[in-house]
C-alpha cells in the first residue's frame, strides 16, 4: 500500500510564497479573494530583542481519519486508497460542514461567481472547474498519478516541503516521522494527519 504524506521543515521555509503561487497556478484557486489551497503564515515569535520570524506553511493534512469526510452528507469528500483526500465537485452541494469540521482551516468555498471569475482569470479554455464546491488541497493528485511531486514541493526553493510514502521503509519522510523529528499538528484530535512539521524553535533557542 501507499500512504502519501508531506513533511514541512520550518527551519528552511524562507517565506517566499512560491508554493502558494505554484499551487494556485496548478490548481486554479480563487486567488482574487485570497483563497489558497496552501498558505504561508508569517508570524513574529518572542519578546523584546529575542524575536524570531516564523513562516508556517499550512495545507490540508490529508488525515487518515478525516472529519471533513465523515460529516460530508453527499460523499463529495472522499479518500483514495493512497490516503489523498479529494473533493468531487459534482457531488458537493456546498453546505460547508467540512469547513466547520476541519481543524486545519483547509477548506474554502468556491462559488458560481468564482467559477465565472476563474474563466476570465485563468482563461476560458484552460479553466477546468465547472461547478462550485468547498475546495481543498489534494496533494496535486493529478501530478502524483503521473509520478510527479505536488507543485508546492517541486517549487520550494528551500526544500522545506518533502513529499513521500509513509508505507515505504526506504522513504526519508518515513524515517523523519518514525524518529519523531517530524510531528503532526493537533494529533490529539484523533484526525491522524499526514502532514508533519519539523520544529524550528528548538534550534533557534
Amino acid at each position: 500500500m501507499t500512504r502519501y504524506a508531506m513533511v514541512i521543515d520550518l527551519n528552511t521555509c524562507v517565506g517566499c510564497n512560491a508554493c502558494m503561487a505554484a499551487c494556485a497556478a496548478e490548481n486554479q484557486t480563487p486567488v482574487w479573494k485570497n483563497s489558497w489551497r496552501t498558505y504561508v503564515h508569517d508570524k513574529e515569535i518572542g519578546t523584546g530583542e529575542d524575536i524570531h520570524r516564523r513562516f508556517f506553511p499550512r495545507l490540508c493534512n490529508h488525515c487518515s481519519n478525516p472529519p471533513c469526510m465523515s460529516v460530508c452528507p453527499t460523499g463529495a469528500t472522499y479518500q483514495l486508497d493512497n490516503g489523498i483526500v479529494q473533493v468531487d465537485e459534482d457531488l458537493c452541494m456546498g453546505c460547508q460542514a467540512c469547513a466547520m469540521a476541519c481543524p486545519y482551516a483547509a477548506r474554502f468555498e468556491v462559488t458560481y461567481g468564482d467559477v465565472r471569475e476563474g474563466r476570465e482569470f485563468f482563461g476560458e479554455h484552460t479553466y477546468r472547474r465547472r461547478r462550485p464546491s468547498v475546495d481543498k488541497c489534494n496533494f496535486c493528485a493529478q501530478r502524483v498519478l503521473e509520478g510527479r511531486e505536488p507543485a508546492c514541493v517541486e517549487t520550494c526553493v528551500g526544500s522545506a516541503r518533502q513529499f513521500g510514502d509513509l508505507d515505504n521503509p526506504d522513504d526519508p519522510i518515513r524515517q523523519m516521522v518514525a524518529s519523531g523529528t517530524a510531528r503532526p499538528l493537533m494529533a490529539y484530535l484523533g484526525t491522524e494527519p499526514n502532514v508533519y512539521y519539523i520544529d524550528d524553535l528548538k534550534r533557534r533557542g
Partner: protein
Amino acid sequence: MDVTTSFVTQDIWTWWLAIYLYLGGMGAATLTTTFLTDMYLKPHPELVLWGAWSGIAMLGVGSSMLFGHLLDHMAVIHVLNPLVLFNQPHAWIAWGTQFIVWMMVWGFLYALPYMLESAFFGRIPLLRDILAWEWVQKVGRTCGRHCRLCGWAASINGIGTVVYTGLLLQSFPAVALWHNPGVPLLFTVSAFSTAMAFLLLVLNLAIKKREEDRPLRVLYERTDLMLIAAELVILFSFFFYLQRGSQSAAISAQLLWNNWGWLIGFIGFGLLVPFFLELKGVIKGWSSPAPIMVASVLVLVGGYLLRYYFMYAGVYAQPW
C-alpha cells in the same frame, strides 16, 4: 510548535444556521408532542392540525436557511435521495435531511384525516377541491385506519430531527464547546421546551381557551418547567466543563459567560424568568393566562439565543 497557537471563532455558520437549528428542533418537537398527545393523552384534532402544519412550516423555513446558503443548490438532490444513508451513514446532515423529509411526509399523512374533517380546510379554495379528490379521500381513510403507524413514524423522525440538531454540532471535533455529548442533550431539552412554550401559546391564543383543555395546558406548563430546570442543570454542567480542560473550551466559556446577551438575554430572560413564572403557575396558579404567555414568548426567544450564541462561541485552536 504549539507556542504560537491562536484561538479563533468561525464565520461560516452563523445566525442563519442558528435559525435552522432552532426552527428544526422546535418544529419537530412541536409536531411530535401534538401527535403523542393526540394518540395517548387526549384526542385533539385541532391541536394536531396546529402541530403538524406549524411543525412543517418551521421545518420548511428552517431548512430553507440551510438550502439558501448552499453553494450549489442543484446538488442537494444527492442528499434528498434516501440511499444517501447507505453511502454516508456517518454524516449527520444526511440523517437530518432524511428525518426532516420523512417527518414532514408522515406528519402530513397523520394530519390528513383531520384535514378532511376540518371545516377550516374545507373553506380554503383550491385546497378544498384537492381534499375532495377521490384518491386523497382514500389515502385519508387509510391513514385514519393506521393512524398509530403514521403517528409513530412521524414522531420517530421528529425526535430524530430534534436530536440531530445537536449531533450536527457535536460532529465537529476541533471545537470543545460543540464536540461533547452535552450538546445533543441540551438542544433536545431546549427544543422540547420551546415546543411546549409554542403549544401553550397555541392553546391560549389560537385554539379558544377551552375548559376541557385545561389539564393539557397544566401538563404542558409542568413539562416546560421541568425542561427549563433540566436545561439550567445542563448549562451549569457546561459552565464547569468549559472552565477546565482545553483552552478552546475555556475561551468559549469566557465568550459566553462574559456576554450580556447570553447571561441576561438567554439565561436570565430566556430561562430564569420563565422558570419562576411557570413555577408560580404550577404552585399557586395565575388568575390570568398572561404570565404563562409571557413566559412562553421568553422561552421561544431564549431558544434562539441559545443556538445563536453557541454558534458564535465555538472556538478553534490554530497552532500556526
